[in-house]
């Protein structure tokens, strides 16, 4: 019994170490493949069950994001103005908003093919951009780039750039003006009320 347990532990350890060794582009590819195959095969998700898509994003995508870093970047020079408690609230609310946003994007997925571009990175790099491209008919391909950093827990995404539009930069503009108008607390409040409006209603299926 103890042997079995030890073996399980070893296996877990090995897979944890494995996750850290995965190259950033390989990681993005693995997550994309996994998520897309689930979306394609799950009937509820195909029917637009947002709660289920949210759960999928929570389980498969979020562990690979560094929300603290994302929030810090979106706050920019306002970050030091927030107290530790406010910072924690900001990270939590921003994280929730991004889950909903990401789920919304996934629910719009229609068999587009994602191409991976070769990664330009030196061996010791701790900050890289993974470049991908989605092709569409009658329109130019859309680039989706992931800003990634190396952490103790493996590579983590800290920005997503779609067609040249950085998620973090986009929110920085909004955060700035919200803070100017109503302070850090005002921003936290508006994030929280936004999130409440996006909460999937029990049983309701959004399109």
């Amino acid at each position: 019994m103890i042997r079995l347990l030890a073996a399980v532990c070893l296996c877990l350890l090995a897979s944890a170490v494995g996750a850290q060794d995965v190259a950033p582009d390989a990681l993005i590819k693995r997550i994309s493949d996994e998520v897309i195959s689930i979306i394609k095969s799950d009937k509820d998700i195909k029917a637009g069950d947002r709660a289920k898509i949210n759960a999928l994003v929570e389980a498969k995508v979020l562990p690979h994001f560094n929300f603290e870093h994302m929030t810090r970047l979106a706050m920019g020079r306002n970050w030091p103005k927030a107290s530790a408690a406010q910072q924690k609230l900001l990270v939590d609310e921003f994280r929730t908003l991004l889950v909903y946003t990401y789920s919304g994007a996934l629910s719009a997925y229609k068999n587009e093919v994602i191409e991976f571009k070769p990664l330009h990175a030196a061996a010791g790099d701790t900050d890289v951009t993974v470049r991908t491209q989605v092709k569409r008919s009658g329109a130019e391909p859309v680039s989706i780039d992931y800003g990634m950093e190396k952490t103790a827990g493996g590579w983590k995404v800290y920005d997503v750039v779609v067609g040249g539009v950085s998620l973090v930069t986009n929110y920085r503009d909004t955060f700035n003006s919200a803070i100017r108008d109503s302070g850090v607390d005002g921003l936290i409040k508006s994030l929280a009320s936004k999130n409440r409006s996006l909460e999937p209603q029990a049983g309701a299926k959004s399109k």
Partner: protein
Amino acid sequence: MLRHLLALLLLGALVALGGCATAGANPDDPLEGYNRAMFRFNDGVDKALIKPVATGYKKVVPEFARTGVTNFFSNLGDIWIGINNVLQGKPGKGASDFGRFAINSTVGILGLFDVASNAGLDKHNEDFGQTLGRWGVGSGAYVVLPILGPSTVRDGFSRFVVDWHGDPLWYVNNIPTRNELVGVRVVDGRANLLDAGRLAEEAALDPYTYMRSAYLQRRRNLIYDGNPPREPDSSADPQSGAPR
């Protein structure tokens, strides 16, 4: 003629607005007061008219037919895209655009099928505003145009004064036919943006600043064909730089 007059009026209004603009919070957007009002107006028109029609179109017309319509208009646009690539000193890309037009107009049956993309000739995104940007003309203030939406002084000027000369639809002599074609193009274009619009609505705390930031970033990215130089950013990560 009417378009020129409109363009002149618009430019006059822009200059006048620029003159009395207060020092806004965002240096790219000195006209924020006017812009927000126009943004609300456009949103009203969209919600009342354009979006419902586009939604109906998407429901009624099957996907393969909508793709055909999108491809048809996209194909007509490739000539002007090619000319702008040449103007920007990229003859290779321009040749690819003309090649796309030749292939899609023939093998692709009047542009209904985008066979060129499958053959490895990717679609490009160019217009005269980008050409001016490439030539070093700054974007000027951010401006929300009536109905047309987010733009800048440079891009708005290019659109009204130059780009429409490169739009084949304006050379259709039969006016009712031309108007119908323009109408279908608008509805089809809006239908293609329904998902994106819903996403932006969900993601944005303030739709106005969200659209503004997205537009300015997107244009910058397009001008540099996807590889813009890093911007000197005063509000970047506070922990990774010297204290400010």
